[in-house]
């Protein structure tokens, strides 16, 4: 069964030919639809002329990247992007997990299902609409939040125009929007936990909390680790739709992110190459983050991307 690895590499493929047959469609897909167009990445290093095509366009080296970094204030928005994503990671990553765990504790199946369905509704509503709702909801004069604050004796807060609050608003509204939808994967993982493990724990006298700690949570760990690796990769991304529809000049200093900034610069309209370069820049960073986190995961756990 386990022949020495030093046999001819292709021999391994032949030996496991049935497995490779299962693997073949996927590989073909990736080669055709991902690797064959990959030459398009070179646009970021070229001066793209539409009529010459990507391969016929002249090289521009790192010019677009230099232009990106030379944009006044670029590093400020870069910092904002990372910070906001970091907060979303710290607070937003555990949220759907907790949600799934708590949902798990509900006894009534019907109640559970109804809550589940209702909880993912905001995921389907675009930020264009949600922003309009939040702007009114958080209004210092007529918004319910401030009305409640005022009735409790506090001063109203102009959340969306306050640099101290804006990031909090971004993070919390984002968590709320994707809480239900994001918990689906964890609920699926929970469904895969072997029920006999719970029985055994109960027999050993574990109460619900202990069961959650010693059976449920470990059952989620593989999923959590993978999701975490992906989440770290997203540190460099930003949610253009969310920020663009919620921000205003008063909170540029804390809320302006890479995508809104480059949008305002109008550069993406003028040069397709530049837009590609910005995307590539973000992707390289994301890739590095993921590789690093993955290595850490490999060292300390049994689960990793590869």
């Amino acid at each position: 069964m386990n022949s020495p690895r030093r046999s001819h590499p292709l021999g391994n493929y032949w030996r496991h030919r049935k497995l490779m047959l299962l693997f073949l469609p996927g590989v073909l897909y990736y080669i055709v639809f991902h690797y064959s167009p990959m030459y398009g990445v070179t646009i970021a290093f070229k001066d793209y002329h539409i009529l010459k095509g990507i391969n016929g366009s002249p090289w521009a080296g790192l010019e677009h990247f230099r232009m990106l970094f030379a944009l006044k204030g670029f590093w400020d928005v870069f910092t904002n992007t990372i910070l906001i994503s970091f907060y979303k990671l710290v607070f937003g990553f555990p949220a759907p997990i907790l949600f799934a765990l708590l949902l798990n504790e509900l006894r009534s199946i019907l109640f559970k299902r109804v809550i589940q369905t209702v909880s993912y509704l905001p995921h389907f509503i675009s930020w264009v609409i949600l922003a309009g709702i939040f702007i009114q909801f958080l209004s210092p004069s007529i918004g319910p939040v401030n009305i409640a604050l005022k009735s409790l004796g506090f001063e109203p807060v102009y959340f969306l125009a306050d640099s101290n609050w804006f990031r909090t608003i971004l993070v919390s509204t984002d968590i709320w929007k994707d809480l239900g939808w994001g918990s689906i994967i964890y609920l699926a993982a929970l469904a895969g936990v072997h029920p006999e493990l719970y029985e055994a724990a109960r027999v050993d006298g574990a109460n619900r909390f202990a069961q959650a700690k010693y059976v449920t949570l470990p059952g989620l760990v593989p999923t959590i680790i993978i999701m975490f690796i992906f989440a770290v990769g997203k540190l460099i991304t930003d949610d253009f739709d969310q920020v663009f529809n919620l921000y205003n000049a008063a909170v540029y200093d804390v809320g302006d992110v890479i995508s809104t900034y480059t949008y305002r610069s109008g550069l993406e309209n003028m040069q397709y190459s530049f837009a590609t370069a910005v995307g590539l820049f973000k992707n390289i960073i994301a890739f590095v983050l993921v590789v690093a986190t993955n290595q850490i995961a490999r060292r300390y756990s049994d689960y990793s991307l590869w």
Partner: protein
Amino acid sequence: MHKKNGSKALSGLLVALALILVAVGCTSKTDNASSSQPQASQQTNAGDEQAAEGATAADQDKYAPIEGKKYEISWTYYQLAPLADNAIMKKYFEDLFNVSINVMNVDYNSSEQILNLKVAGGEIPDKLNVISDAQKINFFNQGVAVGIPLDVVRTYAPNMMRELEENLPADILDSCCIRDGNLIAIPQLGKPMFRDPIVWRGDWLKSVGITKVPETLEEFEDAVYKFTKNDPDGNNRNDTYGLSKSGFSAVFGAFGIPWDFQVTTNWIVKDNQLVYAQIQPEAKEALALLGKWYKDGVIDPEFITGENTGGYWALSHAFINNRIGFTSHGQTYHWSPRMTKSADAVPGQDIAEMEKLNPEGAASIVHGDAPIGPSGVRGVFSNPLVTQGGNMFGKGLADEPDKAGKLLQMLDYPYQSLDNMNTALNGIKDEMWAYQEVETIFGNTEKTAVPIGQYVEWKGTDKLNTNFAHTAMIPFTVTDKDSATYQWHAQIKGDQFHLANELLAPLPSEAKFKAELSKIQEQAYISIITGEKPVAYFDEFVKQWRAAGGAELEKEAAEWYASTR
């Protein structure tokens, strides 16, 4: 054990990847555009080639459409939805001009992306509709679009040229659309007569005892203070303010500075120089005044998020919801009353929206004059005379100039007569529309084209557009100077008090600094108005603005201005 495999695998991957990229890149057959290039002439500026030719008689002949030949013209236009099957007017115009029109559906909202894709795939339409100046310049410089000698345009589309030349000052037409004697784009006319509105709640004015619509800045100030302090809506609550963000346009205008809540970067001519308006000392004076008003509670504290809270951009929810009594939000036409006495006349969108909530308030709207500032200046922001983008001529026409002539003839059609214009706009005469005499609010009657029969239900929808009328056949519209709309506009002095951005071309380094400069400016303006920073901070802001690239823009702007003299 894991690690060794991992790093070996990674390096193996990178090598494989490099090989793949090189192999695929070198042999890529999927890049149509590059393989279909006959020669390298596209590298040079397309305009240069034509400049060398000049518009000789031979050229005129070259562009002459061949009699009896049925041309196939590929066409793009301002589309919100795809062309309908069996579009009525497409067949009509195909028969009329003996052409075959191949419409490339290019959704307006994704227009730039989609057009880029089509062009990359080798499909360049003969009539190219572009929606931004950036794309216009890009397409021309890269040879995707070509120019046609002005004389040729005058020959085959004389009426169109005439309308353009009558409605646009020569230097503006020149800078937007003409290169080396060739017309490179047919512009979409801005609506020069429309500007930011100067709108007052007439009932509030009355309620606080003001009988004359404010004319000077002092009277303006008096009015907005009274709106705040004297409970103009009589509900015994302290919930009204004088103005909000959009209203600043009138205040800045009183100091000669063009400013609009959407267009906050403007250049003006001062002492024969083109300077940046927003750093001028007059802007500082305006900000000082606004700061004082904010401190006294006259400005809506939520001005930062703007007057519109979603939906159609021109609606001022702050105004409609009885929060403020003055606004310059939207354009004058959004605040127009019904123009005719017919049953289906509708007012401007803001009035329409306000009528739903507060018909009396809506009916009391008054259009005032721009308040006169301390140095006798007055104005509000007004639009540029041309909008961004326009219609261009696709590269394929360079090889088939006679087709270009045919296209020009088609584009000239709407401007040949009123009937033609209405046909291009509304469809077949006496089948889809007919002239009707409608009584206007001015007591005269106006002859307008009114949809008839089953086409009545098309009114106000995109149906004409998807049936190849309206934006499909008409490069740009011209306002009828005899119409009630125009008359009303003149009545409210809509053609007066215009302050516009005098910089008509993008500056070379603009994109590099734009985002940061606007950020610095917005933040400075907001903090001075809210009092977070003192008025003296303005000088600091000007220094910052210059240091962050503004100085370079000033230089480039001066150069551009000199080049246009």
